[in-house]
């Protein structure tokens, strides 16, 4: 069995007196899609921030493709092959959609040498996420749905091998969820992506993910396939408050 693309060991994060994450460990193999689930405040976004390098872990170790990310700034973690979306979207408002992707393509792992080459390389991603028509509009004028798709497009455009998707389904109607699932499946296939997905929309999580990590109060209480998780008594008691 080949080494995992992403490996997390004993990961912990304290903010002063608050323990956001404690002793979380799991692997993600190349090509896998792993979900992360848990109530609000369970530590999911903190986990992403640690993996992407936006925060430093208090304890533990993260390895991307065998290389430790300890002490690396987020831009260097990105170049190792990690792309991430933010739950609260962070577009470059005055730059056009195309220019937003250009940044990703030029500075990410893809390392495109200039604007023209970068723009050519990002056209497929624009098309896949339905942003081609808005390509030359300032990103700040997009609807929230458009900006969420832009977040995903940018993360993919960096040429990342593992993409961290933070609640990209939030606020979507059931039809939109289905469309987004289809888009993600296609992107995953066309770019050979490994995905780590935070979601509250259960249906999306079960559909996309081979395995799910369940966080509760910063601790990992279960890892398994969707079916195993659905039947796990610890998960059920955490979510329903009693053994149902």
């Amino acid at each position, binding site marked *: 069995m080949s080494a995992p693309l992403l490996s997390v060991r004993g990961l912990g994060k304290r*903010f*002063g007196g*608050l323990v956001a994450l404690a002793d979380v460990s799991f692997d993600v193999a190349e090509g896998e899609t792993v979900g992360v689930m848990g109530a609000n405040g369970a530590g999911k976004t903190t986990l992403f921030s640690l993996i992407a390098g936006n925060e430093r872990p208090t304890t533990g170790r993260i390895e991307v493709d065998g290389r430790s990310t300890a002490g690396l700034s987020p831009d260097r973690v990105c170049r190792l092959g990690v792309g991430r979306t933010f739950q609260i979207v962070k577009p470059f*408002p005055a730059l056009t959609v195309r220019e937003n992707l250009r940044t990703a393509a030029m500075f990410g792992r893809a390392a495109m040498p200039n604007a023209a080459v970068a723009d050519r390389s990002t056209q497929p991603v624009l098309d896949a996420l339905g942003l081609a028509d808005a390509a030359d509009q300032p990103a*700040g004028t997009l609807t929230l749905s458009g900006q969420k798709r832009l977040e995903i497009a940018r993360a993919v455009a960096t040429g990342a091998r593992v993409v961290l998707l933070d609640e990209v389904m939030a606020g979507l109607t059931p039809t939109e969820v289905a469309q987004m699932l289809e888009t993600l499946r296609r992107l995953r296939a066309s770019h050979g992506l490994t995905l780590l997905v935070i979601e509250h929309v259960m249906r999306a999580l079960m559909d996309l993910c081979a395995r799910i990590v369940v966080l509760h109060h910063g601790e990992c209480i279960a890892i398994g396939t969707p079916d195993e998780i659905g039947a796990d008594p610890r998960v059920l008691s955490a979510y329903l408050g009693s053994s149902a």
Partner: protein
Amino acid sequence: MSLLETLLSGQFLFAALVTGSLYALIALGLNLVYGTMRMLNVAHGDVVMLGAYGAYGAFALLGVSPIVAAPFVAALGGLVGYGLYRGVFRRLLASSTPASAGRLEANSLLLFFGLSILVQNIAALAFTPNTRSVASLSDVWHLGNVAMTGNRLVSLVVAGTTCIGVAWFLSRNIAGLAMRAVIERREAAFIVGVDVDRVQRTSFVLGFASAALAGALVSMLEQFSPFSGFPFTIAGFIVIILGGLGNVKAGLLAALLLGAIETYGVALTSANLRSVLLYGSFVGALLLFPNGLFARRAARR
């Protein structure tokens, strides 16, 4: 004078208290206005300057001592604050979305800087750029071997009681609590039923009034010109950065600290270094707290 003698000297302690209490008063006003507007009012010191001119005017035209003029000058300052709030800021604050608020904050500094330049130079055109001061209450009192001129003693008392009074008000009185709530988290205060508009209005009025009051005191204490305002703004900001936004009690301590740094620093080195110490403290405070006033709130999300 040896180091120990300087540090223990009652004379310098008095000087430090006078300066510190003045800074505390200025910082108090800045706290209130910034807390409502969320914009760095770099023109705050210019309100102090205008207050000084107001007291000077009363003295020159009516022969009235700045102490007597002070409450009127303060009231006038409050009126200006009220007018500005109703005329300009209420609309600005009400119409801002989170996105536009971010941009506004970034540009706001340039805006207030432009206003400051406007005010300073219009004042210079109106009053001439020459320095002035009011010679009043210059008789000297003695406590032990500390010589205190009347004007500085009065300034200490007025500034000190005003600051302590407002601090008490903010921590005990329900209206004061409402004010602190609005400073800390406006939307939350609104949700729990605070009349945000009235609180903001009151903060503005109090903020400007206290600045004008400080100006009246300054007119007795030192020479001032239309361009004297900015160092006061800087001092005010140092105090707020060190003490934390909305934290009036910590602000009082920080102001006294700043007064001490200036007084003892100058005493131990030379008068040339007064500005070096002021701006050095300013740069140091900002570099220590790169998030300005929000360093303390970093843990919360």
